[in-house]
């Protein structure tokens, strides 16, 4: 079955028959289609532009293979380039010392759910996960993590209802983890917008206190053009070590991931594919590339 994009490219390439080489002029229409496809998938404007420049350079001069159509060939170059960008290898979690995982992101991205999902994943691997609630701000955020922890049989640190300071909550959480005899501790933080300097400063303080070996940025697959700014600001302030894309069970193309990956250089560690605790999957760059392309 032809992908939507490839179908469009077929049209653009009709006139190419007989040409031995892909040239600047005969691929300009295809590049336009590809640009549209990328932007429709929410890839950042500039990231899309750079990507197209790269594909162009690679495509130009390449022999048109007899076995495949020029459009197939372009799609393949494009696909490979995307996989390259998304990161060829799947990156495992760093479970080294101090065994602290900080989870951060925009409001409603899926941090609390993902924290619990990660805990379940570790538990299934025979590890000893612990959950620490540091969102002392959003109504019932601590309770949410507590309920999820209970459902998967993972202990949860719940700061006192009077605790209003997230940094202190995180520090108390570290103490609690010690008392529990240690384990891989996942710290769930409150959602925040990256333009909120005050809340960002709070996150920086939490990071400084925890000195985690993993800092995971959780993002919604449906994120739009804000992705670059989000990834850049979070990364600049808390030095992200991995990305997690949530809600991939929907039909969002997820082009934002390309932008976030590009900006941070961080590996994508997992994807969320549902609301249930076991719905966390290892990231497959190849599948993601196809999804963004609409294949």
């Amino acid at each position, binding site marked *: 079955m032809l992908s939507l994009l490839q179908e469009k490219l077929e049209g653009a390439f009709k006139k190419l028959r007989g040409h031995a080489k892909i040239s600047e002029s005969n691929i300009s229409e295809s590049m336009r289609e590809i640009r*549209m496809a990328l*932007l*429709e*998938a*929410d890839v950042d*404007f500039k990231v899309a532009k750079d990507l197209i420049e790269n594909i162009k350079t690679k495509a130009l001069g390449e022999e048109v293979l007899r076995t495949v159509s020029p459009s197939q060939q372009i799609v393949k170059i494009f696909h490979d380039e995307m996989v390259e960008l998304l990161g060829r290898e799947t990156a495992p979690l760093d479970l080294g010392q101090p065994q602290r995982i900080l989870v951060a992101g*925009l*409001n*409603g*991205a*899926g941090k609390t759910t993902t924290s619990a999902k990660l805990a379940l994943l570790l538990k299934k691997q025979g590890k000893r996960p612990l959950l620490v609630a540091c969102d002392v*701000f*959003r*109504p*019932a*955020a601590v*309770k*949410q*993590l*507590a*309920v*999820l922890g209970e*459902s998967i049989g993972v202990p949860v640190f719940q700061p006192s209802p009077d605790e209003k300071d997230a940094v202190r909550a995180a520090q108390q959480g570290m103490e609690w983890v010690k008392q529990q005899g240690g384990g891989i501790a996942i710290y769930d933080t409150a959602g925040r*917008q*990256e*333009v*909120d300097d005050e809340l960002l400063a709070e996150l920086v303080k939490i990071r400084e206190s925890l000195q985690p070996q993993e800092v995971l940025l959780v993002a*919604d*697959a*449906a*994120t*739009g*053009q*804000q992705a670059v*700014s*989000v990834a850049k600001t979070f990364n600049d302030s808390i030095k992200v070590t991995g990305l997690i894309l949530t*809600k991939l*069970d*929907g*039909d*969002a*193309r997820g*082009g*934002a991931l390309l932008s976030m990956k590009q900006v941070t250089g961080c590996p994508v560690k997992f994807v969320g594919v549902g*609301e249930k605790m076991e719905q966390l999957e290892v990231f497959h760059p190849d599948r993601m590339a196809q999804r963004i392309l609409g294949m």
Partner: protein
Amino acid sequence: VQRFTKAEIDWDDLEAQLIAGDLGVKLSMQIVEDLQAQARKLHDVDIVEVTKKHIRALLPAYTTPLPPLISGKPKVVLVVGVNGTGKTTSTAKLANFLKKRGNSLVLAAADTFRAAAVEQLEVWSKRVDVPLVKGPPNADPAAVCFDAYTSAAARSAQFLICDTAGRLHTRHNLMEELRKVQRIVGKKDPTAPHEVLLVVDATTGGNALQQAREFHKAVPLTGIIATKLDGSGKGGVVVAIQQELGIPTRFVGTGEQVDDFAPFNADTYLDQML
């Protein structure tokens, strides 16, 4: 955004700005084309202002507030949307907004699925001092809304606002569940629900249009609440939703506090976008 005079309008830059605002590539190109067609008539104008005016014309002249029903029965408002957009927070904000304007209300905790969703709304209901009706754990959301309606009617409340669980528009059975809520409240009052508000996260890109299409098919929408406009997301997709589906944005959320909420104002919105 640069401001140009006629001679030096940078159309590519304008298109980039529109796309950066998440208006979507098609709508952005359409707007640029329209403006280019007008360009002959443009003379030493501020293209940004012209663009704003153009988009302004795509949006409704004004958005209607939510007046209580004349019948004296509770006006039923369903708050719906995909996961994590801000439904529960917006439910509380809307309740507070209406209450401050002298209306009496009841809230229905119809998200019986997500962990601590009921507790979250419960905290809010206390903060804004509005009664809440909830069901037993894992209750049928339609049954919760039904009971909440009974309670609202008994209290002669003017509004019943139902906070529903987040659901992706691609999940058929969950969309069916929403239709059931709609059907059941319809048994109490055939004209209910009177408002179905889709909560759209301004951080969302093109997928929000698809969300709106699917929700609109399942439970005809009467308006949008665009949330998280305090972030860097411009929420341009609400223009695309307006254009394609004719659904107006009624309210905006601009923070996590209860007062970070206002009726949609196209001028303010556009000033922040461009």
